[in-house]
């Protein structure tokens, strides 16, 4: 079905009229009216498509009569000459759920998940189409000559005032199925007579080359390359500066609520910042640490309510499906209730993030992190001048033992708070391992993080189900008070609470086994190999 499509670069000094005349002299042809074409190359904030070797192009012809239609084209960047996969839609692409089923959506699903597709590059151009005809005036080959201009909006508030950067013009040769001989003749015209060369760079890459964008530049994953001998205060500043970059990168997306992952990443970076402040001990002065711990706790607190609602909404289909079929429709008022509160909660958050308190926090924090560390290193705090490796060894080893002590103390009848405390310690240990992973053998740390993650997942299930059940109960009281939940809805919510608590109990029952999997001899040796012996060596120097 896919017609053969070939693309050629048109040298800048080529006269368009000479080109058109050459096409017309090839044989019977029909010149079509020029059309304006807008192209957007889309990806999510994580560059998931680009990193998977794909490009998503959205074409739109703004001058065409209503209703507007958008053509989505999925390109394989590894095979630029291959035919793209296409799908049509009635509105610009954004969230996956808003896209009708189709071959492009099918490919997007596993890659973008709940992230919004955002424009990476926007191009605008004119397409001059020519149809080569046979004796029956039937189209046998199509030739499209396209000029392209990259449009960069000066500000989101004023998209009309865009900076325009012209790109090279291209000629597209499109075969018509069943008329291969005619395509071959047209190729001879384009390649031999006109001397045009096939394009080597996909349009997306050419457009990206004239931007400051670096594909794949954003990732919420931690990947620091620390120098083991670096001073601990300087290395800690590097870690915190990177986390600050992540917080800042996610502010606009959070304020305009492009998708829920912006807020999620902002909160994770905030949590990691707080963890680094409290866990990489003795590298900065205590009053400064206390001050910023309080200020970042405030940030965590103001971002909490929207995140809670996001979790509800994201989990809602799963929660609904977990109920027996007759109860499911009765849960819908719960979603309506959440949605009704969402906008005002989100507006409050957006206002806080635009406010002076937040701006000052970011400004002060950046100023501190970017300031050079004092020379010579101060005697106090005591770890500031030590090597980051020595500090990391000590902190990880200590936190590992805290996890062991807390975990081993848990019995079948231990209160839930003990598991909650253990979870907090595990998270601290995980963050430390992630911050410092470049200082240790990769495979070893990777395995330790993996084992820890299993334990954290179980503890997370235990804790989250309880929190969700409690939250659901509060919401039920609220809905009852506001009159938005009838008796059937409240009963369905009750059934859901029962299920959540039952799942929580299942997780509780798995604790001993999962913890034993973490607290085993092989893991102990790994920790010892990585963190203990070297710590001693540091100590002996």
């Amino acid at each position, binding site marked *: *079905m896919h*017609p053969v499509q070939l693309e050629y670069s048109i040298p800048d000094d080529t006269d368009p009229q000479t080109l058109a005349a050459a096409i017309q002299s090839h044989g019977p042809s029909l010149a079509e009216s020029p059309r304006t074409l807008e192209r957007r190359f889309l990806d999510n904030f994580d560059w998931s498509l680009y990193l998977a070797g794909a490009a998503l192009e959205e074409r739109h012809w703004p001058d065409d009569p209503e209703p507007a*239609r958008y*053509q989505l084209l999925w390109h394989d960047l590894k095979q630029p000459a291959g035919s793209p996969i*296409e*799908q*049509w*839609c009635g509105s610009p692409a954004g969230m996956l759920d808003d896209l009708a*089923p189709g071959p492009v959506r099918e490919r997007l699903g596993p890659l973008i998940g709940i992230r919004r597709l955002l424009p990476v590059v926007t191009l605008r151009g004119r397409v001059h189409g020519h*149809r080569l005809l046979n004796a*029956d*005036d*039937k*189209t046998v080959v199509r030739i499209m000559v396209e000029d392209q201009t990259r449009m960069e909006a000066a500000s989101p508030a004023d998209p009309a005032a865009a900076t325009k950067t012209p790109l090279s013009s291209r000629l597209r040769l499109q*075969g*018509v*199925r*069943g*008329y291969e001989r005619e395509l071959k003749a047209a190729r001879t015209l384009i390649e031999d007579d006109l001397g045009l060369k096939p394009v080597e760079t996909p349009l997306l890459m050419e457009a990206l080359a004239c931007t400051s964008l670096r594909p794949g530049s954003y990732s919420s994953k931690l990947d620091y390359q620390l120098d083991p001998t670096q001073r601990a205060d300087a290395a800690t500043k590097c870690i915190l500066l990177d986390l600050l970059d992540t917080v800042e990168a996610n502010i606009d997306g959070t304020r305009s609520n492009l998708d829920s992952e912006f807020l999620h990443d902002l909160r994770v970076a905030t949590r990691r910042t707080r963890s680094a402040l409290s866990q990489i001990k003795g590298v900065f002065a205590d009053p400064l640490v206390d001050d910023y711990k309080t200020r970042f706790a405030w940030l965590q607190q103001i971002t909490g309510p929207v995140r809670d609602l996001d979790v509800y909404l994201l989990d809602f289909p799963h929660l609904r499906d977990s109920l027996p079929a007759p109860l499911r429709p009765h849960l819908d008022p719960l979603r309506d209730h959440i949605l009704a509160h969402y906008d005002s909660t989100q507006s409050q958050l957006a206002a806080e993030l635009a406010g002076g308190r937040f701006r000052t926090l970011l400004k002060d924090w950046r100023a501190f992190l970017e300031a050079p560390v004092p020379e010579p290193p101060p005697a106090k705090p005591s770890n500031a001048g030590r090597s980051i490796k020595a500090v990391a060894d000590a902190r990880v080893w200590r936190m590992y033992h805290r996890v062991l002590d807390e975990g081993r103390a848990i019995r079948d009848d231990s209160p839930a708070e003990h598991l909650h405390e253990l979870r907090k310690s595990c998270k601290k240990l995980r963050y430390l391992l992630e911050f410092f992973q470049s200082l240790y053998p990769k495979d070893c740390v990777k395995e330790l993080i993996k084992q820890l993650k299993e334990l954290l997942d179980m503890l997370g299930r235990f804790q989250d189900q309880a929190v969700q059940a409690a939250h659901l109960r509060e919401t039920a009281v609220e809905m009852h008070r506001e009159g938005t939940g009838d008796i059937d809805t409240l009963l369905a919510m009750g059934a859901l609470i029962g299920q959540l608590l039952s799942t929580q109990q299942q997780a509780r029952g798995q604790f001993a086994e999962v913890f034993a999997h973490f607290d085993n001899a092989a893991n102990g040796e790994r920790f010892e190999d990585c963190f203990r012996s070297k710590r001693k060596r540091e100590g002996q120097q």
Partner: protein
Amino acid sequence: MTVLASYSIKGGVGKTATAVNLGWIAAEQGLRTLIWDLDPQGAASWYFRIQSKVKGGGKALLSGKRAPDGQIKGTDFDRLDLLPADFSYRHLDLLLDRTKGSRRQLQQLLEPLGDDYDLILLDCPPGISLVSENVFRAAWGLLVPTIPTPLSVRTLDQLRSFLDQLEPARAPRLLPFFNLVERGKRMHRETMETLPERYPELLPVRVPQASEVERMGLKRMPLPAFAPRHDASVAYRALWDELRRQIEPTPRR
């Protein structure tokens, strides 16, 4: 892939115009569409300026000597392809009769095209024959253009009687609609008033009789491509919208 047939026992009811115009609208809306011109007269092929010729004729197709895939031609319109007619299709009944599984041949030929197309429209010759039985087996729905006259209604009754004899799981959905409607004619108005009682499945769209439809042969292109705002084009779009509502989610046959 959904297979729809534009079919009627009676000739001259607008089967080809229906297949050609709906195919164009579906492709314009983004569906990868194939029209198979099964009528040896080759009117659909003519509308698209494509020669009514298949290498090796119907015999080569049915014998498997040549796959339909290699015989398909692109039309002048994006996403719309055509499997041309061939004069040898006038003997298709005889050819089918000689092959094993004579009622499943068409279905088997269409199956490999499932990955390439979202919609296949069969433009069928009139009559009821072994070709028709193949169409009934292959198609999800039979789109039956019906002129609101007693003769046309009679053939619709005949078709329903025939379909009623098929196993329900193997019978296509009957999708009649009023075509070539002349509101000035009393007989048309009366038929359109009374028939829905007997045929609740009648699609709620009436395509008017229009000289513009006849100009398709002159222009050699689908009506909505040269007269997008004409009443008949609007009616075909409404017909497609209604069909799409009934088709989705895409059934597989």
